[in-house]
């Protein structure tokens, strides 16, 4: 296998329904409902998804939600800020664990 990620796989996501159609249909129905216009707009939801896509570092999701954000009318300034939000949480999550390091170091130290 030349590599694990292939952009031509993204449109084949539906193949995941082949051996577990009922689970796939439930996922599809839930997914569709999640992204429907609600208390948040579809544009806001797409920006959240873009941020999360970067946090989980899923290239398929980044591809899909970059296009989705553009098609919902977001611009690069807004999309870049969304990625910074995700990155700040990731960075902050690492940094806040520094308190564990400090706790352990304190316990071990005289």
């Amino acid at each position, binding site marked *: 296998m030349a590599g694990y990620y292939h952009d031509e796989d993204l449109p084949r996501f539906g193949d995941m329904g082949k051996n577990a159609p009922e689970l796939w249909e439930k996922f599809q129905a839930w997914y569709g409902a999640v992204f429907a216009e609600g208390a948040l*707009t*579809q544009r806001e939801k797409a920006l959240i998804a873009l941020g999360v896509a970067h946090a989980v570092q899923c290239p398929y999701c980044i591809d899909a939600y970059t296009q989705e954000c*553009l*098609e*919902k*009318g977001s*611009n*690069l*300034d807004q999309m870049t800020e969304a990625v910074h939000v995700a990155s700040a949480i990731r960075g902050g999550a690492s940094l806040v664990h520094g308190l564990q390091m400090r706790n352990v170091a304190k316990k071990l130290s005289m």
Partner: protein
Amino acid sequence: MPSLNSRHHELASASEQLRILNNGAGNGAGSAHKLFDDALEASGLFPLKATGIDVFQINVGKLCNQTCHHCHVDAGPDRTEIMTRETAELCMKALASTAIPTVDITGGAPELNPNFRYLVTESKRLGRHVMDRCNLSVLLLPSQRGLAEFLAEHQVEVIASLPYFLQENTDAQRGEGVFEKSVGAMRKLNDLGYGQQDSALTLNLVYNPTGAFLPPSQKALEADFRRELGKRHGVVFNQLYTITNMPISRFLEFLLRSGNYDRYMQRLIQAYNPSAAEGVMCRYTLSIGWDGTIYDCDFNQMLDLPVSYGAPAHIRDFAAGKLSARRIVTGQHCYGCTAGAGSSCGGTTV
């Protein structure tokens, strides 16, 4: 940037564009896709037929002061094909024989055609509503002094291209400095009463995506444009129309060059909407080319696909009866008008 035509680019040829749309790019960049006519058939709309003629659209030629990257006309300052007075008079004679309520004048930059003002005044004399598809920057050309005032005097509806409310996105598509000129021209129109509340002068804007993606919700984007253009530049407008980029001419060249052709076609096909297909503009529009040839729409015009199936294909043979119930010539590019909320010269159709 010169036009595809003056670069002798292979995509300047309509037959080469049709070959790619029908068979794929042939270099691994694309492949044949599901036929548009099959999609129509599945929606119970094949063969697609006109429901009447509400809009008499005249494309007065390919001459333009801009060379936008996505232009489906391949227009530019280097193009010389423009409508003559004789053909313009034939158009007005045909119009006079009908009760078609709206005349839609496009190009190129239609105002650069010496017969533009004749077409406007004659259409108004016949009591028709007139729309000018304006690139805005043309209003600031020294050679066009008095143009904005002329449009206002004749109560011409201005439909102006402005792909985004930010300079970066607009200039990337339409050329360096175009955004600033566009805002300047909007100010000039606003000063004349265009786009103002309680004014009879209408200024509508046209958004089209600055890349290989579909347009956003027209309503949501209109609110963004109104807020941002008002806040940043103090300019106003009436409505925003969102239009999908057709996979032809310079936008097709961009799709192929950037490796986006196949994906974009798949996106259009995936987003095929039967309701949008039912309301496509060719069903109520007639498109006249600069040389008097009659087409179902401006896109068919650029692909050299005149009306067919027994309908008269030149303005000198105009026959409203035959044209208003004609069968429409369709092709793979038509997916551009049927994706999502639909796309027409008047924005979404659903």
